[in-house]
């Protein structure tokens, strides 16, 4: 093999290698995108089967406590259209859910919530921000953001 031929082989090999690397990253990116959209569909099914009932019951209990109408349950469900957020919210504990709902859906201030639930205001704030943090972690950090 002469020098010229060796050069050609080396150059072509480098070219092929770079191209293959690029193809792989492109392929993986595409696949990740497809998988993400697939996961959302699966989660939707889950929500319909179990998560939905679960969250409905919890909201119902909560609204009974507050003496609110059933109509507002629907309002909450309408607000949370993203199935990932559904899942995240249903992963929170009772206090966190309660405060989150009061704060976001009923637009209460921390002061009002603390007097309604007989909890110190500082604790309400901490619980609220912890819940938000938890949801953010479940949703996968900055990429998905809220």
């Amino acid at each position, binding site marked *: *093999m002469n020098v*010229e*031929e060796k050069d*050609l*082989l080396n*150059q*072509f*090999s480098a*070219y*092929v*290698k770079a*191209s*293959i*690397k690029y*193809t*792989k990253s492109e*392929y*993986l990116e595409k696949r990740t995108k497809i998988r993400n959209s697939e996961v959302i569909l699966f989660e939707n099914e889950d929500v319909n089967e179990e998560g939905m009932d679960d969250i409905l019951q919890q909201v119902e209990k909560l609204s009974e406590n507050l003496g609110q109408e059933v109509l507002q349950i629907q309002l909450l469900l309408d607000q949370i259209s993203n199935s990932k957020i559904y899942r995240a919210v249903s992963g929170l504990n009772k206090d966190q859910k309660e405060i989150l709902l009061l704060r976001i859906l009923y637009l209460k201030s921390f002061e009002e919530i603390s007097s309604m639930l007989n909890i110190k205001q500082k604790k309400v704030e901490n619980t609220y921000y912890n819940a938000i943090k938890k949801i953010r972690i479940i949703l996968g950090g900055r990429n998905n953001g809220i």
Partner: protein
Amino acid sequence: MGFEELFFRARKEDKEAMMKIIEMYRPLMIKYAFVDGKFDEDLYQEFVYRILVCIKKFPYNKK
């Protein structure tokens, strides 16, 4: 047959030469076709296609 001849035959769409070049790069493709420790057949096929494109598009002119 040297690589140069092989390459130019492949460039002129000689199937045999194309196959030989793909054979040459098979280990490289197999190496990169492993995703999370599993061999990805689809990705491998993408690579084969990509090599054929490379043969056509490689910027080289015979002196």
